[in-house]
């Protein structure tokens, strides 16, 4: 009896495992993406809808990692920013308004990534403080101006909870410490790293496809 149950459990867990690994991809149309096959991506400084002025450059400096590890050449974000500045474009809004053809002429990139940070910051309650970073992205073909992919992601630093026990006083003390940490250590920046990873890493459901530098390029 026990054995039979174990057997069934083992089979079920195997099936679940396979399903879990395979992920789901069915509902996103990658036709334009696959036709365009971009090799290089120009990441523009993100638009910032949050009240924290740090959001744009905090996010910008975290987005090279997931895209490069996905297999794309990512144009050097600091140099790109300097080039915009030297041409009188000092805000993300100005930069996002530059025609794709002009971007292609200067940077020679195949695609450009337009990101908007919708949330960046810490909300305080009596018992807790939570830092959240949310963003959405659009990948544009710079030759045709066509949209190749869109996506959004969010992350916060209270995922998994922090119920350490210790009753009400313990909770209050923990909340106070966390608030200080969130304030002093620019917690938004490390959360932005998680958001970037969720937004732009390849191999995620409905995520960006692998690029030419990846050993699994063309398999997704």
């Amino acid at each position: 009896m026990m054995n039979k149950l174990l057997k069934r459990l083992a089979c079920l867990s195997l099936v679940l495992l396979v399903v879990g690994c395979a992920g789901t991809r069915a509902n996103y149309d990658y036709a334009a993406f696959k036709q365009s096959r971009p090799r290089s991506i120009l990441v523009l400084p993100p638009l910032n809808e949050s009240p924290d002025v740090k959001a744009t450059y905090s996010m910008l400096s975290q987005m090279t990692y997931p895209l490069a590890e996905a297999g794309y050449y990512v144009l050097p974000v600091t140099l790109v920013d300097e080039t915009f500045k030297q041409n009188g474009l000092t805000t993300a809004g100005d930069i996002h308004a530059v025609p794709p053809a002009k971007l292609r002429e200067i940077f020679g990139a195949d695609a450009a990534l337009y990101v908007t940070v919708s949330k960046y910051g810490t909300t305080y309650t009596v018992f807790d403080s939570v830092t959240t970073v949310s963003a959405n992205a659009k990948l544009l073909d710079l030759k045709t101006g066509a949209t190749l992919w869109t996506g959004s992601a969010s992350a916060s630093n209270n995922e998994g909870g922090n119920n350490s026990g210790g009753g009400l006083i313990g909770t209050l003390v923990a909340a106070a410490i966390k608030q200080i940490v969130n304030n002093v250590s620019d917690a938004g920046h490390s959360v932005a790293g998680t958001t970037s990873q969720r937004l732009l890493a390849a191999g995620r459901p409905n995520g960006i496809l692998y690029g030419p530098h990846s050993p699994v390029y063309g398999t997704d």
Partner: protein
Amino acid sequence: MSERRVLTLALFSAVLLAGCSTPPKTLYQWEGYQPQVYEYFKGQGNAEQITVLEQDLQKIRAKGNMPPPGYHAHLGLLYAAIGKDDQMVQQFQTEKELFPESTPYMDFLLKKYKKREG
């Protein structure tokens, strides 16, 4: 199914699970590149950053790995900021060699530099 086979199956599942969770090897050795980029945007001193990035580059080379895209280009920008133009040109050339996709932009920057010089 014997107990042993159940055990084998369990072991197999465990191995599969481990396979799912193991982070795959990265394409590049990043060292402190992204934090340095953030520091640059916040206005940290260029000379100190060159020291850190050059040291990290030694570590990357020692392991025979690749620095990430933009690493040498960013170094070039830092050298330009402290007036070491020949070093800047060299870094941009290295970026081109490692990543041919960077050629149009690197050439754009080098052409602008030559115009300023000439």
